[in-house]
């Protein structure tokens, strides 16, 4: 009999979730019908290759995974703006990318959509193609203090209320009315009906109307994106990234207090900052574990920003970044997820620290980190990958790419536990360079 989830060890949970990922379902929950026996075989081969690598085993060859933002749109001849608003175009572009380049794992069209939701809700946190940035470019964050320096207590006391009544009204113009009092907490008395008065006022009603519209639009998009996953799985291509999570330090530093805010808080109110991150960690874990279970892909991508080399001293990293990040990793692993830690920038000075990550399968994906050093320090505890630089893919030649990839494989592939791929979210690349990267890995990366 199958072991109950509660009785499983974290390693068993990861294995169980990966097994589920190897046997995809259709939207009705039945076993997926593959296009052909070859497609089924290809799906299993690709997924097993990635699974072996992330479990520190030696696959048949080095698996390839690419990370991208709007690149598939540009490659297919669309602007980012177009794929954000025309959902069929996003499906077409993202599918074309996978079929043409055939990486072992792929990313769903989560970057492009749905754009209309941002218009409906008057999104302030990011500028997006055709809205604050040119239609041919990607998202850019509008950094600010969306949480004020004196609001840590409000967050720590009641994160849920903080998000709904303070944070959301700031990042979504259409939800400004949520700052008004909501449903009151005294409902056990008769006469409680009057507590609903706030919902009668026009601005609050307008905010709810916007939410309903945004919800409908999101549902439309999930239909398109879901079809994308099913079609590609049926054609033999497993999705690899699905659910995102973030380190508590980055959540507060990127989009709540802002870079300047969090960095001054490290000096002016370090205890509050740490307390807030402690409060945040379990929330992030719960969201990601629930999402990964529901989505059938256990890989949880954590895009890491402010812990990079130079951003913090090692002492600051150990004090502020690592403790709650480590908790996040432990929570994800315990929930059967495989953290895919995407360390943007350099992570050279952190390698010894992150070696002490909780036990379990983790993928460390590097951008500007010295890969020989990474292999040496992490090679026996975690899967590593990434590092093919964006400038090589966008302004280099196929031969240069080929040479680089061979060198990377020579450095990192030994013994398994390695995935080849690019190190930065790809927004531009010469297609011939991308082919050179992927094809070289497939030919040169065979384990003998």
């Amino acid at each position, binding site marked *: 009999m199958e072991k109950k989830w509660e009785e499983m060890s974290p390693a068993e949970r990861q294995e169980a979730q990966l097994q589920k990922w190897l046997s995809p379902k259709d939207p009705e929950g039945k076993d997926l019908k593959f296009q052909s026996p070859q497609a089924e075989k290809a799906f299993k081969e690709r997924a097993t290759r990635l699974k072996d690598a992330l479990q520190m085993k030696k696959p048949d060859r080095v698996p390839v995974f690419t990370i991208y933002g709007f690149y598939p749109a540009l490659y297919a001849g669309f602007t980012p703006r177009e794929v954000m608003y025309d959902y069929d175009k996003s499906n077409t572009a993202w599918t074309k990318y996978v079929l043409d380049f055939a990486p072992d794992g792929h990313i769903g069209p989560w970057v492009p959509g749905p754009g209309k939701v941002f218009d409906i809700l008057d999104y302030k946190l990011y500028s997006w193609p055709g809205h604050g940035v040119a239609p041919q470019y990607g998202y850019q964050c509008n950094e600010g203090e969306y949480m004020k320096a004196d609001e840590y207590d409000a967050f720590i006391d009641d994160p849920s209320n903080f998000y709904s009544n303070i944070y959301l009204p700031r990042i979504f113009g259409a939800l400004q009315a949520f700052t008004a009092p909501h449903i009151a907490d005294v409902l056990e008395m008769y006469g409680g009906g009057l507590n609903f008065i706030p919902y009668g006022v026009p601005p609050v009603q307008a905010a709810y109307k916007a939410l309903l519209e945004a919800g409908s639009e999101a549902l439309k998009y999930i239909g398109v994106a879901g079809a994308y996953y099913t079609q590609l799985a049926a054609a033999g291509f497993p999705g690899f990234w699905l659910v995102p999570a973030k380190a508590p330090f980055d959540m507060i530093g990127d989009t709540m207090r802002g870079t300047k805010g969090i960095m001054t808080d490290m000096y002016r109110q370090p205890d509050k900052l740490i307390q807030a991150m402690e409060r945040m960690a379990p929330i992030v874990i719960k969201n990601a574990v629930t999402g990964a279970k529901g989505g059938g892909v256990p890989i949880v991508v954590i895009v890491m920003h402010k812990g990079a080399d130079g951003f913090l001293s090692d002492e600051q990293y150990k004090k502020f970044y690592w403790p709650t990040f480590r908790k996040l990793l432990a929570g994800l692993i315990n929930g059967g997820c495989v953290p895919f830690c995407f360390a943007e920038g350099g992570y050279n000075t952190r390698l010894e620290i992150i070696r002490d990550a909780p036990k379990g399968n983790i993928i460390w994906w590097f951008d500007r980190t010295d890969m020989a050093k990474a292999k040496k320090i992490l090679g026996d505890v975690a899967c590593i990958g990434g590092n093919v630089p964006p400038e090589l893919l966008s302004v280099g030649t196929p031969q240069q790419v080929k040479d680089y990839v061979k060198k990377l494989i020579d450095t990192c592939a030994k013994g398994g536990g390695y995935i080849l791929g690019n190190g930065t979210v790809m*927004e531009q690349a010469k297609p011939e360079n991308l082919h050179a990267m992927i094809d070289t890995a497939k030919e040169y990366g065979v384990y003998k």
Partner: protein
Amino acid sequence: MAKDLVSALADLKEKEALKIVEDRLNAKEDPLKILDDARHAMEIVGKRFADSEYFIPDLVYSGEILKAITEMVKPKLTKTAETKRLGKVVFGTVAGDIHDIGKNIVVFMLDVNGFEVYDLGVDVPAQKFIDKIKESGAPVVGLSGFLTLAYDSMKQTVDAMKAAGLRDKVKVMIGGGQITEEVRKYTGADAHGKDAMAGVTLAKKWIGAG
């Protein structure tokens, strides 16, 4: 006394530094002397950053303390500070890119190191750089960019300088998270700097103040 403010600010002791400034202002000391000490302290901060003793949070925090000091001192200033400037630098984040944190740090470090910086902001079109170079006569230009799209914008900006006949009159430095020597070659810039102090060193070298 003077030394105290220098070390308090350089050691990032905010309360102590502000208290010293308050006491010195109450003692009717020449506010320019206070600012001079603050500038000296910021040089130490910059040096510690270059030596990897300080990191970005420390730099950012030193800027916050300096801002507080300047705000306290400003109302007492009877004459404007006649600080000698090393030279002019035109700076901005290139077209299409709206990131400003890296740029602001470099501009700040250039400023406290004695340069007169014309900060054009973010998403700056090539023409705006050209206009400012012509108007100011600045011999150094800094192009910042966080995204890979900046490769092309930087190249276009450098090309525009060529087309305007300005290329041999200015030295161009580029910087940002995804900027490497390969990118420098591609854009046609003169140098790339890996951090704020590298930018200061380049500017000093080019302006002959190094």
